[in-house]
């Protein structure tokens, strides 16, 4: 293994050692959502005309779990090691800012996909979505996880205290994922809120991801790919630059 691969391995090992909390818990949370919302809305809501609400909900919950856990992975690792001081072991190495980026974002993608697979495995029993275009599923899962992993790097470097990190998570990540169409199709919203939803890049991740399951989506998957790809590039550029300048880690 080369240097950055070791950092990637270490970051994966870090969350895997506490897998009950980092993988098990989010899977259980998703099951709770499915039980409650699925039970309440199953017979009352049909999406895209023919899709049952529980089947519609499965990809939404999977993507939400991927995004939240990818973010949690890089951000919590960085803030913890910054506060505990153990980041020094990585700071003293010859690893470049690109190596850091690859390892932290890579491990976030691994955790996101692992949790996503877990959530899919347990929620699929409630409502089976199709697999119309599996490549879209994979593309949006990886891109979404990578973007949130990079966002986690930004938040982890920027935060100096756990409170700041919690604020980032609760006031930015949570609203953006919840308001992105996890639980509903934005076509069910009034026109004004539909327009607002179109400004949220998270909406395109979930919409494109869902397209892979049903072959139907609120907007074209190519448009979603373009927007998510661009957002990913912008967020990555910021994260890489923060790592290059050693923002709040090299004084």
């Amino acid at each position, binding site marked *: 293994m080369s240097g950055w691969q*070791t950092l990637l391995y270490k970051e994966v090992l870090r969350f895997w050692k506490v897998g009950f909390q980092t993988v098990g818990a989010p899977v259980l949370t998703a099951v709770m959502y499915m039980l409650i919302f699925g039970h309440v809305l199953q017979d009352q809501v049909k999406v895209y005309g023919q899709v049952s609400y529980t089947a519609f909900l499965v990809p939404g919950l999977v993507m939400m779990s991927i995004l939240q856990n990818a973010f949690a992975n890089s951000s919590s690792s960085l803030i913890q090691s910054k506060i505990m001081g153990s980041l020094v072991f990585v700071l003293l190495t010859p690893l470049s800012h690109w190596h850091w980026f690859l390892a932290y974002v890579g491990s976030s993608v691994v955790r996101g996909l692992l949790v996503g697979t877990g959530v899919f495995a347990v929620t699929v029993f409630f409502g089976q979505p199709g697999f119309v275009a599996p490549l879209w599923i994979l593309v949006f899962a990886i891109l979404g996880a990578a973007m949130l992993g990079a966002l986690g790097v930004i938040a982890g470097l920027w935060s100096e205290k756990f409170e700041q990190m919690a604020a980032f998570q609760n006031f930015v990540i949570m609203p953006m994922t919840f308001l992105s169409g996890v639980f509903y199709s934005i076509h069910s919203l009034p026109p004004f809120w539909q327009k607002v939803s179109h400004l949220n890049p998270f909406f395109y991740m979930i919409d494109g991801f869902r397209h892979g399951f049903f072959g139907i989506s609120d907007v074209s998957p190519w448009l979603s790919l373009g927007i998510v790809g661009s957002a990913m590039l912008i967020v990555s550029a910021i994260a890489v630059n923060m790592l290059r300048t050693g923002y709040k880690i090299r004084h």
Partner: protein
Amino acid sequence: MPAISFQSVSKSYPAPRGPKGSTFLALDGVSLDIEEGEFFGLLGPNGAGKTTMISILAGLSRANSGRVSVLGHDVQRDYAQARRSLGVVPQELVFDPFFTVREALRIQSGYFGIKNNDAWIDELLSNLGLLDKANANMRQLSGGMKRRVLVAQALVHKPPVIVLDEPTAGVDVELRQTLWQFIAKLNKQGHTVLLTTHYLEEAEALCGRIAMLKSGRVVALDHTSELLKAASSNVLRFKVDSELPKVLADKARITGRIVQFPAHDALEIENYLAAVREAGLVAHDVEIRKADLEDVFLDVMTLHKDSKAGTSGVTA
């Protein structure tokens, strides 16, 4: 080519107190070369700039001006090579709570691209008395054991230049001895060692050359033997039960009941004892000893008493 080179290095930080935008000058034009194979001591009171120098050397901080290199590799432009050449034992007792000792050492080796490093890891564990803790989680170790792991982590990639930032702060005698034996062995094998410590007897015993730092400036730099020669040759040491008169106390180093006067000759010693007697005091346990590095250190610091930390701070 020097193992470590500082050329006119200055570093300022935002001042913790004072008006907004004001800065604290932690290093003020430090120039210093440490040759390959040296065992070099960096001494100074708290806040003198020792850790700032080490942080800049290790890439944890960036100098505002000047140039720092390790074996000719600039720590900024050629940071990868510089860091490969450097093994740093940080001052803070830090550890990664997720891993065992062996895992931590394997991971640290991996960061440097070193595979199958178990033979050297075992040697490190054995030399530092950690073999029976190899599979223990870092959280389960005592402070002294964690300190040993920090040393091992700094050495996994066999760096030619080893930097120890107060490695014996708060550790027991056994570890100090184990550690110094091992570091001295590495030094004999050709590794350059840079040490900061508050234990001056350690520095005197180990370091061939010493720099003393005060308020971000190098105020003394010489071979340890030369520094010792330059100091007052003797120290008069005794105990008294009452307070010394101010005129005497100002010249003495007082630790509880113990009083010490630097003295150059027998006459000076006699005069001090006479002055104590005249003050109506009785000196017990009188002894005369050779001056040591602590005396040199205190002499140098007294000489540069006027340069208070932070007074050289400038407004940004």
